[in-house]
């Protein structure tokens, strides 16, 4: 089993006719994902090279009605991405993965109340997506080759760091149930706690690697959740121990969260919750592999 995606996933790609959208849609199909539709307003009926059998629609509603799509992957420029998310929510999709980077924060603040009030899971924005190796389903841009089926869950705020750790897990013989890149933006649809609770409930997942980074307090909140609710082992790596104090993170951010947002503070919180924290990404992977033996 896996979380969020499985063999029943039928994907619509919003922005499939663009160069990035079509390139990565082809890679998703190579991984095994059932891509049933593309959407680009005004391009209904278009034929995309290498994806001639995937029909293109003007609207997500139409794509969903015609093809039974239940998940979306969004490759849409930042100025239009928040609207694309709302379109997927309105169409009643179960999972919406938004890869777009650079969406203004206020756009996400406007979108989130509607996402929360819906039955849709939004992953991202500014995320690499989700993979479930045993089902052969990948939604997003993660390099498929590093994955292998198994019993580790991976959840991460960072894209490329995720691939690094998944590669180590695979190299160490530990496959994954599901890898979720939740995205690095301040306002995201699904947070550590949400994914941890899904992993906790998934019988196939035996342990979790949590990849965090400096800024915000999501790692600290995850630590509290792990301590209070999780029975499965969790290991972690926090990026940014040697980073200069994060310049984009203003004072008021720290006032709001009541935390420093530093790597050390996050590591301490996680350790206090029984999480094994690795010195390097490879170390975090190895710690989990050891626990799962």
């Amino acid at each position, binding site marked *: 089993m896996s979380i969020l995606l499985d063999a029943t996933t039928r994907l619509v790609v919003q922005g499939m006719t663009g160069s990035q959208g079509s390139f990565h849609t082809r890679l998703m199909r190579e991984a095994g994902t059932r891509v049933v539709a593309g959407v680009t307003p005004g391009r209904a009926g278009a034929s995309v090279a290498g994806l001639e059998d995937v029909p293109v629609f003007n609207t997500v509603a139409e794509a969903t009605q015609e093809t039974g799509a239940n998940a979306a992957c969004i490759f849409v420029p930042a100025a239009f991405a928040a609207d694309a998310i709302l379109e997927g929510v309105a169409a009643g999709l179960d999972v919406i993965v938004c890869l777009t980077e650079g969406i203004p924060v206020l756009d996400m603040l406007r979108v989130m109340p509607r996402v929360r009030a819906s039955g849709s899971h939004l992953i991202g924005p500014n995320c690499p997506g989700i993979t479930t190796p045993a089902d052969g389903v990948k939604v997003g841009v993660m390099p498929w080759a*590093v994955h292998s089926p198994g019993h580790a869950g991976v959840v991460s705020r*960072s894209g490329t760091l995720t691939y690094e750790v998944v590669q180590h897990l695979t190299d160490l013989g530990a496959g994954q149930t599901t890898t979720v890149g939740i995205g690095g933006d301040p306002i995201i649809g699904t947070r550590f706690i949400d994914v941890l609770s899904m992993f906790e409930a998934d019988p196939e997942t035996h342990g979790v690697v949590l990849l965090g980074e400096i800024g915000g307090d999501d790692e600290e909140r995850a630590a509290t959740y792990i301590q209070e609710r999780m029975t499965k082992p969790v290991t972690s790596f926090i990026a*940014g121990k*040697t*980073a200069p104090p994060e310049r984009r993170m203003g004072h008021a951010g720290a006032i709001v*969260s009541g935390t420093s947002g530093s790597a050390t503070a996050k590591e301490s919180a996680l350790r206090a919750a029984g999480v094994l924290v690795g010195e390097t990404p490879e170390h975090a992977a190895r710690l989990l592999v050891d626990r799962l033996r």
Partner: protein
Amino acid sequence: MKVHECDAREIFRRHGLPVPDWRVASTADDAAQAASAFEWPVVIKAQVLAGGRGKAGGVKLADSPAEAAAAATQILGLNIGSEPVRRVLVAPAVDIARELYLGVVIDRTAQSLVLMASAEGGVDIEEVAATNPSAILRVNVDPVVGLPDWEARQLGFALGLTGAQVRQFVGIAQGLVEAFVDVDASLAEVNPLVVDDAGDLQAIDAKLNIDDNALGRQPDIEQLRDPHEESEAERRARAAGLSYIKLDGTIGCMVNGAGLAMATMDVIKHYGGEPANFLDVGGGAGVEKITTAFELILEDPNVRAVLVNIFAGITRADDVAAGVIAARERLTQEVPLVVRVAGTREAEALELLDCAGIGAERSMDSAAALVVEAAR
């Protein structure tokens, strides 16, 4: 992006905040002349983007043209947080009965705006947050709905204001929220918001930071960018779509993704090295971008070796490899280069590098160990 106080004042005033008049001057003479338009005393304030302006001597009172000129001379001679003071703001000094704090920021946890207010204004609000957090009142605000009258009123009464002051406060709090939303801010702050001797509220400072992701739809705000805000290297990096921060070590780093970039620095440190910079090339890295990245790294005289660590996802590893090859050909400097590429189009990338005679490491750890060795 940070906005200067004088520009933030203009924006706040447009949203109905009671901001006393002001002038901006870049010489002592102009400052003295500007001051003469107001009643004495006046306040003269350094216009810098760094914080801690007051403690650094960047704010002074003056009671005559001569004093104003002297104060402006002093302030215009300062460096505040490594930033030379180029302009001063001149405004009538306000008789202050009480100092409040009022600010709007993003609340990541609640996924909304949060309006923060405190009866302990004027001082460092971080200090208040650390020592007496209950002195900071918070109200979450939906940016679509705005701040309702009743909630602003409730906050005003909680700050100990009178009925008439609360009516002023409602307009100020709503105006600050509107300004925040209108310009896509990430921070909008009035500290202090003062009650003057007549019992009226006045916004005598203004602080405003803008969400960089929203500048594309805020052309008027983009115009307010201070070209001195960032170094020349940072400006070039931003123009090329790179995120670059110079550090003190000897190992130049070029990585895709902020998380992996930080992890790479951590691993270099783990193997005994010191990173010379943080550099995230982001997604989709072409030849120009990679070339600029190399230029930025190699301009730093401390750099003794360079590590390229790319784990391609949305980026294509073969594009990066082509970029590295082209950049290397263009660059004259001979500095040891360690390359690690993996992920999307990994095989094609390794083949390209191989043809160009560039060896590639398979893992981040081995690459880091190697580059640390090379930099010794």
